[in-house]
């Protein structure tokens, strides 16, 4: 029943292929929940929105309590997707294995709804493979996470031959927010310089971030340029980077 409702909603609300969605969980990291003021979710979401807009995407989504399961239904089918939230290898009772996923905000310190890969796959049914997916959370860069598959992206790295037009970034193990902020800023900046997704990832590895607190991972096509299809390449003064 729930699946049918989600599917129907996804069909009704599916965004066009030019859309990007940016979600960030603010509440779970807010002072009233952790005792410490934390501006990272807003800043991470802002830099993702800015970069995706500059790459030609129409950016929607939500930061804070408006990031709910319902909002996720509307945004999951986007061609470009970014989320910053708590993530883990959550248990999927349907398949009886740990599968990855992340929490919505929903205005809750604890117990916010978990979005599982199987639910996201259902929300995306009929949508083409995502162009760019950035899961800024713990654990969803691990092999055990099924989130890449939920967005239609295989967990393999391709370069040169048979490259898919898609790119997925996630983090292995625990990801610290401040360190992720530095890495993501460098990744977006390189994309805006015209680098391909793989080259942007390589360049972000060169940024001075603490590898004890962040282990980034990617899958997809190294040479993929994740700009909106109708937008074309950003104006690079005649240059294009690989």
């Amino acid at each position, binding site marked *: 029943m729930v699946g049918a409702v989600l599917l129907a909603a996804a069909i009704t609300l599916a965004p066009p292929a030019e859309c990007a969605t940016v979600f960030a969980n603010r509440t779970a*990291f807010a002072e009233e929940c952790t005792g410490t003021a*934390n501006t990272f979710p807003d800043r991470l979401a802002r830099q993702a929105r800015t970069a995706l807009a500059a790459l030609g995407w129409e950016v929607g989504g939500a930061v804070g309590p408006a990031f709910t399961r319902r909002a996720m239904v509307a945004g999951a089918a986007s061609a470009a997707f970014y989320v910053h939230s708590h993530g883990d290898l959550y248990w999927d009772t349907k398949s009886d294995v740990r599968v990855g996923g992340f929490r919505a905000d929903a205005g809750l310190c604890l117990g916010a709804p978990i979005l599982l890969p199987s639910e996201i796959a259902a929300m995306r049914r009929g949508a083409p493979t995502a162009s760019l997916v950035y899961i800024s959370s713990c654990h969803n860069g691990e092999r055990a996470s099924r989130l890449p598959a939920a967005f239609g992206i295989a967990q393999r*790295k391709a370069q040169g031959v048979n490259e898919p037009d898609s790119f997925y970034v996630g983090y292995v193990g625990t990801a610290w927010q*401040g360190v992720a902020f*530095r890495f993501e800023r460098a990744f977006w900046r390189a994309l805006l310089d015209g680098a391909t997704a793989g080259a942007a990832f*390589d*360049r972000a590895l060169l940024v*001075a971030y603490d590898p004890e607190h962040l282990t980034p991972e990617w899958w997809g096509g190294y040479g993929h340029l994740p700009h909106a299809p109708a937008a074309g390449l950003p104006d690079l003064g005649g*240059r*294009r980077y690989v």
Partner: protein
Amino acid sequence: MYKVRWSLALLIGLVAACGAPGTAIAPSPAPAAQSASLSLRPITTIAALLLEPFELRGLVAQPFDLVRSESGEQRTLQVLVGVGGAEVLRVESALDGSLRLIAKSGVALEGGGLSESAATARALRHLMRLGLDMPGGGPTVRTAAGRTLVIWTREVRGVPVRNDGTRVVLNGAGALVGLSIEASPLAEPPTRLARSDAALRVGAALLPSGALIDASPELAWVLPTEGAGDGSGQRTPRRLAWCLSGVLRDGAGFELLLDAGSLVLLGWDGAP
């Protein structure tokens, strides 16, 4: 082979200088850029050291530019592009000419992987080949997404400068993906260092209920306001700080940074 590479470098340099006015080799009208160009190592000579002869064919140097780095430092940027305008090599230098960043694009995703000692040896070999200073001490070696990171953290009077130092990124076969060298300005150290137990007391008083400091305080040079401030374009001098790490009541890790003299909160970070 060496002579061939130098000849090719010279050839590329000449082609770039003649064919594209205002390239990395030609001086720019901007005064800062003009002074920077005087001591700049041409990207063509670096390319000759890093790329195979067949990879050098058809490369063109783009006009050099002044940019601000991720760490907020003003740098000269040189880019070599190949057929179709695809970036092949990027080099950033400080305004005094010191090499700060080399990034190669499209380095093969080799499998396999390197042992720590092999990765360190490869990284040192790349640094030596480029004529760069050999960093002191033992590096940290980590892997991420099939790349190996060899990191020498800069130390000043035995105290690490967080996120500063030399970082070399290699592919699984040991080929260079890129390297970066960070040397941030440091603030004056406090005239009197607070004791670590005093730092623990102040840190404990700042924590929310249920949170716990679970390690001894450690001294480090850090970027202030990393946790709460803007954190971008930061050429802010690093401050000497006591770093206190622990866990919040939900089990998430955190770190507090307190000024090593006044014990004022400089910043913090944590895991979601």
